[in-house]
Each structure stands twice: as C-alpha cells, then as structure tokens.
C-alpha cells in the first residue's frame, strides 16, 4: 500500500457512486434476506442496510467461502486448479471485521501464498464504515484494540454528519473513489472531531486490556489453570464459535466424484479445531481428544500462538462467538480470569499451483505385509522430487482424496522416489489395489526434514536410529543416505522393533545391513516371535542398553507409532542422552502441507512446516507433542 490520503464526499455521493459501480462490479453489503441481516450481494443500493446489526458470519466468507472447489479433475487424469476470483466491492465492513481480514491477509500470504484466498482479495475493493461505539454488549473490540485497523481495507468512511470523511490507503481505493465518489477536499476539523469522539467513546468503556501485549506469556504460564476445565465442562464442542469467527481459517479437503465416476472436484471446506475429529489421524489416534485441550487450543490460537506471529491479538473482539455460544463460554471471561493472576501487507497471488498436483506413474510395486505396500514412482514430467530425508508428499488419487505420505528413498535416488503405504484411510486403502503403470498425483515435497545442517551435525557422531514398525519407512531415507558413506560417522546403530517378524519392512535390506561390517550394526526385536526368529523378543526400549554409546557424541533419531516415543525418550534420558541430541519425526493429520489448514498444529507450531522432523529439546515442553 503506497497511498494514505484523506478526502470527503457526501453520503448521497457514496450511494450514487455505488449505484453506478453496480454495472462494473458485484457489490456485497449489509442487507436483509428472509428476515435475517447478513452480508450478501445486492442488486440495488436501496437494499443496503445503513444501521449496523452484528451478523452471524463475518465477511471473510467472500474470500474464504464455507466451501469452494480448488481442483477439478477427470478420472483419466486431467487436473485443473480453480481459483474463481471475481471483481467485487465489499461495502460497509466494520473495523473489527477489517482487522480480521488483515489477519487473514497475513496468514494466507505467508510462505506458500494461498492462491484461492489471495486472488479473491486481489480482485476486491473493501470499503469500511468506521464505528464510534460498540454495536452491542457482547462486542469487545476495544479490549483488543481492533477498532483502529491500519490495513485490511481500501477506503474507510467516517460519518461526520451529512458527509463521509474518507481514509484511502491503496491505489485501487484512490482510483475507485476518484471514479465513483466524486471526492472533495477533506474537512480536517470534522475528521479530527470524529476521531476524538471515537476515542472518547471507546476509552469510556475501559480501553484495552492492560496486559494485552503480554497475553502470550500469560497464556504460556497458565496452561494448567482451572478455568480450562470449568469451561470445557460446559462446552458442547459444537463448533459454532469457530464457524462464526472472522479470523479462523482452518479447513478440510475432500474429493467428490460425480455419479458418472468420470469427473470430480477437490473441495475445501471450513473445519474447526473444536470438533472432535479435527486432529484424528487415519490410524485412529486423536491428538486432541479431550474437550479441555480443544478449548485451550482455540483460545491459545487467538491470544498466544498466532498472536506471536501477527503481533496483535488474533481475536478481534467482534463478539460473534460470545453470541453463538449456548454454554456462555467467552474469550473475555477466560482472558480476564487468566490476567488476574500494524503493518500494511501487499496482497499478491504468488503461485497459482499450490493445490495443483502433478501426475506420477507407478514404476514398481511390492507387497510387504497384508496392509503395507511399497511403491516406486516417477513424475511424468521427468522432474525429480528434490527432497530432504524426513520430508513428505501429499499423495492423491482423484475422486478418493489426498494423504500425507513419507518419502522412503534417499535424496540421490535419481528421478524416482519410494514410499511405503499402510492401508488405514480412504486413499491408502485404494492404493492397495494399484499396480505398476497406474497413475497417482503428488504435491510436494513438504515439511522440514533432515536438512543439510542436521546432516552436517551428524558427521563424526555415533548415530542411533530407533524405528518402530512402519516408522522405519521415513527413517530409511536418512539411514540409506548415511549407509552410503558409513566412514563419515563414528558409528551407525540401527534399532528396529516390530510386532512380528513378518511385519518387518525392507527385509532384504535389513539382511544386507546386518552383513555390513566395521562401524555399522543393527539390532532387531519383535513383540511376538514366529518360526525361526533367532533375535531379541520384547519392546524396543530393551535394545537401547545393549548399545555402547557416549552420550556426549551421540545423536538418536526416532520414528515410530505415537505410543513409542515417550518410552524410548525416557530410556535414552536414563542413559544420559540430552534431549538436544534427540530427533523425532512426528505424524499428524495434514490437509494442505503448508501451514494453513490447521490440522497438524501442536500448540503454536505447524508440524507440516516446522516438522515433521524436530529436535526433541525444541518441543519437549509442548503439551501436545507426544
């Protein structure tokens, strides 16, 4: 935003201008439909409600709709990304909702920009109407200072009687005002009077929370406060608070195939961390099963996790969740209980292909166990994946859906890459039936794996690879990389535990590793032996004391089922290994892969961005990590 200027026009001038603009734009504004007040498209400016009544949903729905198609495909593999931007004017948005839009602008612009949101924003002009008081007793914008947005709009109108003063902060706002609003010189005295009256009115209500800037620390200190339990007891987990929130942006992605079974859409829909299934992974584990943890997560996103990112309260105090909650749960009560004890952003669609998957062909298939199958694939385009060990891809079958899958081959494997897939969800069940020559779709690689820095750190060290069950699959990428040059390390010890001998992955490779000499060793264990099993029986932690290692020169790299980590880490600590020298690779549900959809969040971090590989000391104090 380059512009900041003040102009003035008559109220009639604004509505006459909008009337003319109707020929060129779709106009969404506050209006009445079947007895309810809401933001919707109007055909006539006379239908615009001038008196503000709080709406059930915020205007974010115009940029991030309840449901939208992000990809269209045919069953024979033609894929088209959809963004559907339209030239719209959003008129009469209030400061709290504008503050909300500013936060969404930042969230959807960050790292991989979200083309669906950004292209709609890019094509919109937002005209706000300033407030001089709260709209009802549930609103608390003044407590979080959201009534003074500095961006998230193009033109802000301030009511100074017969005229509107205008604050214009963008080029497109300036051009629009010039073309449609017949602007005049601003009367600065009248504008100053408006601003003084506004400030006095909000100050009279009590002003912002004294501890507003310190809320992240205060929330950090109060993760075990009793209020979480008392609020959770009443919480219905109905998701209403999230649905109506102007700054919630988590979503789900589902495939819908037409009955013809020949064409389909990939849709994204609003999702909500308050819903029980939100953090459930395909295997059935739920990382936020307790209502208390979900309530805590939702409120922490507003005043702690995301507040740190956006440098402002991510709750804008619009009061919608307070109005919607039948159980009378309010962020105000929680914040006030716990506290007892702006920069402009350029909106720009950077990439249109975030949700566009690329076709790969299956070049090799091997059945490992009843439920687990090995796949080698290559991009039809001929490009190579270019991944770090520990990264993952979003693998999809059109019409079925998408799933996050670890890459099992080391980086320098040529243009092909390998995965092992366990049939636990829709996509992975379908994969079971696919054969060589069949096609799949892939996005990625995503996430933070064992990058060059970690690989450097590993050199000269004793590396303990600790893998449980299918956890060997993501670790294999790093294991095989290090096995190419074992001389770079003091020693490589591989510890691998499975339920039964027949559940072991990559049996030939395990055989090969066991025959390697010098500084490479492998120890295996199974819970239940079958015929001819001559190695150890029991849980994987029993293998750890069998390894002779110097804790000061050792790195442990751990991957396995969720239940395994706690016990392995405990045993390693008993062997005096510092948590700084432990790396874990975590599994979560993931829908986007780029830190937007919200499913994989652990407290304030997104597993898909910061992880799935973590140095354990970085996350050991995160309640939801293990």
């Amino acid at each position: 935003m380059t512009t900041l200027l003040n102009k003035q026009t008559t109220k009639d001038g604004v509505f006459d201008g909008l009337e003319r603009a109707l020929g060129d734009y779709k106009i969404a504004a506050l209006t009445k439909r079947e007895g309810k007040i809401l933001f919707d498209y109007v055909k006539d400016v006379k239908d615009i409600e001038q008196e503000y009544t709080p709406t059930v949903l915020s205007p974010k729905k115009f940029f991030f709709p309840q449901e939208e198609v992000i990809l269209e495909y045919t069953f024979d593999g033609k894929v088209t990304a959809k963004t559907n931007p339209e030239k719209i004017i959003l008129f009469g948005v209030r400061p709290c909702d504008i503050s909300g839009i500013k936060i969404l602008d930042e969230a959807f612009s960050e790292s991989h920009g979200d083309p669906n949101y950004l292209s709609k924003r890019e094509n919109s002009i937002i005209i706000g109407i300033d407030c001089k008081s709260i709209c009802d007793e549930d609103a608390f914008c003044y407590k979080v200072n959201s009534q003074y947005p500095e961006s998230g709009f193009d033109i802000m109108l301030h009511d100074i009687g017969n005229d509107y003063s205008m604050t214009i902060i963008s080029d497109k706002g300036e051009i629009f005002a010039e073309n449609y609003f017949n602007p005049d010189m601003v009367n600065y005295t009248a504008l100053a009077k408006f601003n003084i009256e506004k400030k006095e009115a909000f100050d009279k209500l009590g002003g912002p929370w004294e501890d507003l800037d310190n809320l992240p620390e205060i929330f950090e200190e109060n993760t075990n406060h009793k209020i979480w339990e008392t609020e959770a007891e009443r919480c219905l987990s109905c998701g209403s608070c999230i649905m109506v929130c102007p700054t919630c942006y988590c979503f789900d992605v589902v495939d819908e195939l037409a009955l013809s079974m020949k064409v389909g859409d990939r849709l994204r829909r609003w999702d909500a961390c308050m819903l029980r299934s939100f953090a459930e992974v395909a295997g059935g584990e739920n990382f936020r099963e307790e209502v208390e943890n979900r309530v805590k997560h939702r409120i922490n996103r507003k005043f702690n996790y995301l507040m740190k990112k956006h440098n402002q309260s991510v709750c804008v105090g619009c009061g919608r969740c307070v109005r919607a909650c039948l159980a009378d749960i309010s962020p105000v009560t929680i914040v006030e209980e716990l506290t007892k004890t702006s920069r402009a952003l350029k909106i720009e669609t950077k990439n249109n292909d975030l949700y566009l998957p690329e076709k790969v062909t299956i070049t090799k298939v091997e059945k490992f166990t009843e439920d687990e199958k090995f796949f080698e694939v290559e991009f039809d385009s001929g490009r190579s994946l270019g991944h770090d060990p520990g990264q993952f891809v979003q693998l999809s079958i059109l019409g079925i859906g998408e799933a996050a899958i670890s890459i099992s081959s080391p980086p320098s494997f040529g243009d092909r890459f390998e995965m092992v897939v366990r049939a636990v969800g829709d996509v992975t069940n379908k994969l079971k039936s696919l054969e060589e020559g069949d096609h799949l779709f892939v996005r990625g690689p995503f996430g933070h794996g064992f990058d060059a820095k970690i690989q450097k750190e590993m050199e000269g060290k004793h590396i303990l690879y600790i893998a449980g069950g299918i956890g060997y699959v993501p670790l294999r990428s790093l294991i095989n990389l290090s096995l190419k040059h074992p001389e770079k390390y003091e020693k490589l010890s591989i510890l691998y535990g499975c339920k039964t001998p027949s559940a072991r992955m990559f049996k030939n490779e395990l055989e090969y590793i066991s025959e390697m000499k010098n500084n490479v060793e492998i120890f295996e264990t199974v819970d239940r032996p079958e015929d001819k099993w001559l190695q150890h029986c029991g849980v994987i932690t029993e293998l750890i004391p069998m390894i002779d290692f110097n804790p000061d020169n050792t790195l442990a790299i751990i991957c396995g089922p969720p239940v395994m980590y706690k016990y392995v880490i405990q045993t390693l600590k008993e062997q005096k290994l510092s948590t700084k020298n432990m790396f874990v690779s975590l599994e979560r549900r993931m829908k986007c892969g780029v830190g937007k959809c919200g499913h994989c969040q652990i407290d304030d971090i997104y597993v898909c961005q910061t992880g799935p590989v973590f140095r354990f000391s970085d996350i050991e104090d995160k309640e939801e990590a293990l």
Partner: protein
Amino acid sequence: MSKPKVAFFDFTSCEGCQLAILNLEVELLELLDIIDIVEFREAMSEKSETYDIAVIEGSFSREKDRRRLEKIRETAGVVIAMGACAHIGGINSLRNNQTRDEVQRIVYPDNPTLYETNKKALPISAAIKVDAFVPGCPVNVGEFVKVVKNLVLGKAPGLPTYPVCVECKMNENTCVYEYGKTCLGPIVRAGCNAVCTSNGGVCIGCRGLIPNPNLNSQKDIMEKYGLNMNLIMDSMNLFMTEENKAKEV
C-alpha cells in the same frame, strides 16, 4: 468394474426412506450406472437370492424378524442401515420406556395380543452386524447416494461426526434459541445441511447423537431456556431413546 447388486428390505418402519429414494428420479437413473438394483419391494416385483449390498429400512421389533435379518446378513457383503429406525431405533423406540403390556393395551385396546412384538424396538444392529448407516427421518437422499458411491469406490462412508450447529452456522441462520425455542442441534449428527433449522424448525434429533455429545451441558442449556427435566427427556427421546439409554450405562 462390475456393478454391485443392491437389494432393499424393510422392517418396522413407515417405508418413507425407500419412498425418498424412489423420489430421486434423475439421480436414481444415474445411480443405476454404478449399481444394479435386484430387489426393491416398493419399486419392482423381482426378487433375488444373491446381492452384494443390502439396504435395510426399519427397526428390529419382532423376534421372528431375527432369522430374516440373519439371512440378509449371510447373503450380503455389506449391510447398510437406512434411516433412523434401522440406525438408532428411531420413533419406534419411543415405546421402550413402557412395558409391553402397556404398549399393547394402548395401541390395540380391544385385542392387545393381536400382533406379536418384542419388548423393545431396536436398531437392526441389535440383531446383526451393520457395516454402514445413513441417518435421518427420512434419510437425506444426497447422503444416501454419497454413502453408496463411497462404498462402491472403496472409501469410508464419509458421514460427518460433527453436530448440526456447524451446518446451521454455515447457512448463517440466527440460532433458534434466540427466538426462545429449544433445539438439539448441538448434540445431533450433521449431514442434513441443517434442513429443519434453516426452514423455521428446530432439530428434533432424527439423525442420532454425535460420537461424544456433552449431554449434561445440553440439558443445562435446555433447562436455562425454560424446559423442565421431563420435557427435556421427552425431546431427547423422540428419536434417540436407545442412544440415550446407552449413554446412561
């Protein structure tokens, strides 16, 4: 892909769900591209000894129906419970809080033992294993098509586990509690696109409870909005007598 054979059966019910399926018209014809309907008493006279998917409407309320249900289970690879009666017992299970004698005397005062009946009307899962269900009274036909399509594709049925409030809010409805009415939306499974609350009604629970409902909080809220405990239980038991009993244990 050879088309799976589908057979429809009815037990204690009004047969309204099957009627709703017949009302699909255009989509029903499209559905026939992916399935073969081999038995459907309301629509055709043919019957079949073999079928892959059995769609069952109605609750299990007579002991003599057990054998027929078992036979269906033995024949079909997949059994779908269609509609509230088959899925959760539905309206029929309203009588489960009374004795059989009382019920028979109320319904047939002149000849109470005219018809054989069990003590309770139960979901069909009380007699046989059920693989998938389509909730509602009647079923949402779009959802029926989706479940069948997903099963044919080898996917999970894909029904929402969240409550009606989610869809009601997405439709931007003013909460009916604000009009002084009470509603079971917060504890009842969505998937109906909040059809009742979006059209001037309230949710009466025909789709059954979400997996982990907070029943205590729901009762507190209904009490706060003026219902006494009897009225609250009447409202919650209209379709969900059996589900509520299961939660009490």
